[in-house]
């Protein structure tokens, strides 16, 4: 209980919002994202793990939530936090078979 108060105070002092953010892992085996569509909340994190045996290049060009992981080697894992609500098209720049929709709710 005490800890919650400390964390809340920290949030208040920094002028931000305190959120309990969830984290979900997305695999890329066989040139496919492990999920075609995920629904998350603003501030949640998707961890893109390259569990395939070739390099991938996960990215999005959706306004407000653009990112580009660049070339991600097998065995690498990178978290991406989405803090704008909306429908985000996530792709692999290399493989057109890799497409997923990330629905970020407010």
């Amino acid at each position, binding site marked *: 209980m005490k800890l919650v108060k400390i964390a809340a105070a920290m949030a208040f002092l920094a002028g931000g919002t305190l959120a309990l953010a969830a984290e979900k892992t997305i695999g890329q085996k066989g040139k496919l994202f492990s999920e075609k569509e995920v629904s998350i909340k603003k501030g949640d994190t998707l961890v893109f793990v390259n569990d395939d045996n070739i390099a991938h290049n996960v990215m999005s060009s959706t306004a407000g939530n653009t990112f*580009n992981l*660049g070339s991600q080697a097998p065995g690498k894992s990178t978290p991406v936090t989405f803090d704008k609500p909306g429908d985000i098209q996530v792709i692999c720049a290399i493989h057109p*078979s890799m497409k997923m929709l990330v629905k970020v709710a407010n």
Partner: protein
Amino acid sequence: MSHQNDSCHTRVWLYGGLCGAFVSAGALALTFVVSSGQAAIVGETRTVEIKKAADPTVDQMKAAYMRPAMIPFPKDNPYTAEKADLGKKLYFDTRLSAANAQSCASCHNPGFGWGDGLAKGVGHGMKMLGRRSPTIVNAAYGQIFMWDGRAGSLEEQAVGPIKAEVEMNLPLAELMGRLKSIPEYVALFKAAFPKDGITEDNLARAIATYERTVVSGIAPFDAWIEGNDTAIPEPAKRGFAVFNTKAACAACHSGWNFTDDSFHDIGLDTDDVGRVKIVPGVLKMEKAFKTPGLREIARRGPYMHNGSLQTLEEVVEHYDRGGVDRPSRSEAIKPLGLTAQEKSDLVAFMTALTSQSDPVPVPVLPR
């Protein structure tokens, strides 16, 4: 630069005991984000342990190359014989170009494995184009079209060259007028598209439907995959193994049509920026082009997006050397250290992908 700049965000990650104090689920982390940027926030990359799959047996490798039983047609443009017949006439009709001199078949000629046999295509006014004309063989199975993937569907691709100034140079509105002035085309469109007859979309639908019927014939390789052990020579069988293992060609040239439609800079000496023009700012898309399928490949030289390699032997040499080592070069491309026999085996394997195609009759065109 591969990562987004993080400087506009302030993040505090609270892990361990503190986190455990108010979340019960182990997979949750407490994130404190002050942010108003235009980008998602990319965190630290870590190394994780990935279970390595066992090396596939030859039978498992072979199973990945079975021919599909059906040609896929999209839901919004299903096959009809009327559409395919009309599409074939349009495909071979030179009146689809401003000069009345070029048809789709000029550059995608069945006699040359549905390409043109040239290093680079020839467009309006006999001017040389920037890239080699790709084959349309097995286009039905494509996920994305053109060397740089700028067309998302075969319908979109089909009308691109007609209206492109450097190619057939005919505005579609003008083409609609031409087609409407030919009574037989009016009737054929009406039969294929009873609702609206001659329209730009229906032109695209008809040509795409015909193109989807162009599928490579049964090759000796297919007979071998089906279980006829003597259908291909021993060097081709060894080449198939090298293709799938040491040379790792199958990392991209995968499946029965030998492509996953992926984009790679394969280290060719070229000024062409390739895919990055369509996906700006993505380093690995610089000088990247779509992986072509390998069916009928022995009939389809010269090779590469610019026709710079004359023979399959030269192609194998290129991949063995690994091309120009530069930041945009694909991680899949590196020196392979192939022996002389492995190289000739790879060529023998690719030669076994040539089918005994029947001649293609040219349609009688409406007048």
